[in-house]
């Protein structure tokens, strides 16, 4: 039996060149959605086809890849994509944020600060921040071209009118480098401030919608708000049950059917790093907690 042979990182070289050209343009125009000829990938839309294509086209043999899904290294999506690149590119993988050179992510930005040698690749379901307000693509493109963004504040106005505060908690719209309004993919708004002046290059890939966009390193990213209702980071009020962190983004985990619950770090690597630093005994105790 012949083992399947793939070109490095699955995509053929011409496709990778095409995507790289789109990425270069995206980097040159921060926040602008660049169309690209998205390929069929061996996974369903919505599972990160855009992110995988971006990762495949920037990956080199020396790169170390980390994949997270909702902050976690060991959920299905993360494990599958990591295995996909182990099989098709043979690159080294890691779960450590600090060791990775390329991090593909769905819905989170790692808690640890990223460096200039790193690239963060986001999986994006709906790249158009104006989509739910204006269904016509021709019109939204025109609005971007003319920086005609009043409508974005209409959405935030509606939030305040209905809930008394800006109730958008994820996919919170941002303005990149003072020009393009951008959907930061469905990351919690807790992560929005991390995008601004980040040392790492941030790339966004939407496979179904066939768009690539980018935030170059050290670029200002501003979350939209009102003067009398400024942007606020949102975080559950609690500490991680494993590592005791009170500054990380938390997941709420239901532990039984009698109302038992606990909060744990959404970023598993951050949590594990903190536990290993605070002593071997606690690490063992942490590892034995059922997930």
């Amino acid at each position, binding site marked *: 039996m012949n083992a399947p042979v793939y070109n490095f990182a699955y995509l053929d070289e011409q496709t990778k060149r095409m995507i790289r050209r789109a990425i270069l343009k995206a980097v040159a125009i921060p926040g602008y959605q660049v169309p690209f000829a998205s390929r069929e990938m061996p996974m369903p839309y919505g599972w990160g086809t855009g992110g995988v294509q971006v990762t495949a086209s920037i990956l080199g043999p020396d790169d170390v890849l980390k994949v997270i899904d909702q902050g976690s290294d060991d959920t299905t999506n993360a494990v599958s994509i990591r295995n996909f690149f182990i099989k098709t590119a043979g690159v080294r993988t890691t779960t450590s944020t600090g060791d990775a050179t390329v991090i593909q992510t769905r819905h989170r930005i790692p808690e640890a600060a990223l460096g200039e040698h790193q690239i963060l690749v986001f999986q994006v379901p709906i790249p158009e921040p104006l989509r739910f*307000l204006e269904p016509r693509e021709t019109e939204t493109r*025109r609005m971007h071209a*003319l*920086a*005609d*963004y*009043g*409508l974005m*504040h*209409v*959405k935030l*106005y*509606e939030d*305040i*009118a*209905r809930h008394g505060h800006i109730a958008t908690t994820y996919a919170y719209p941002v303005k990149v480098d003072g020009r393009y309004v951008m959907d930061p993919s469905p990351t919690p708004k807790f992560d929005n401030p991390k995008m601004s002046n980040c040392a790492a290059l941030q790339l966004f890939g939407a496979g179904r919608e066939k768009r690539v966009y980018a935030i170059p390193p050290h670029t200002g990213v501003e979350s939209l*708000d*009102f*003067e*009398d*209702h400024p942007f606020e980071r949102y975080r559950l009020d609690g500490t991680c049950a494993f590592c005791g962190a009170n500054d990380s983004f938390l997941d709420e985990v239901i532990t039984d059917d009698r109302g038992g619950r606990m909060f744990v770090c959404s970023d598993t690597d951050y949590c594990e790093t903190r536990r290993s630093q605070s002593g071997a005994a606690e690490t063992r105790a942490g590892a034995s907690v059922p997930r």
Partner: protein
Amino acid sequence: MTDTLQEEPLLIAEGLSKSYGRQLGCRDVSFELYEGEAMAVVGESGSGKTTLLNLLSTQIAPTAGRVLYRMRDGVTRDLAALGEAECRLLARTDWGFVHQDPAMGLRMGVSAGANVGERLMAVGWRHYGRIRGSATNWLHRVEIDPARIDDMPVTYSGGMRQRLQVARNLVTQPRLMLMDEPTGGLDVSVQARLLDLLRGLTADLELSVVLVTHDLAVARLLSHRIMVMRDGEVIEAGLTDQVLDDPQEPYTQLLVASILPP
């Protein structure tokens, strides 16, 4: 009315023509509109009224002719020479457009307050309290209960929707209002109330109005001047009372004679 007139016209149409292939939209329409003046365009369906309105609002480009507008800085400019961004800014600060169907002019999925506030946010207002204050004020002025500010327009009656549309347009204090059958589809008592409101507002704010209607009674109530169109051409124009009381053209005579006696 005469004392508010200025030397320079606000809006000038010069030889406007539009053809859709072989189909004629309108031909060689020229007029001048001064500040504070309301002009009605009347005629039957298909006479080119709506084409003319779309030409004036730059939503379609003319086949021949041009539209000139005196900007807020006092300079009269050819609208075709404006950039798209300038046109958009003009359309939502200095102009208003009232559609016959309020669903065309409103965002039916967002609250009344956001509908009124949208133009303010588009021109850079970023203070929720002030936007809401302004929206409340305008709802009050168009006789909508400000307690309904957070309701969706879909919960409004036809007359309320139309008044909301007017408020949404007036919030940036435009100088020119384009209206396409603003009372169409409303029942008579609601029509009367809306007309009363429009008449009061246009007089108070010294608005210039181009009003497209097939209803001569509406034209008589709201407009100072009238233009009668047929088959894409202006066949008669003049002071409203003069044209309606003493129509010269056979077609105008027919239109006037078609008004149902009260």
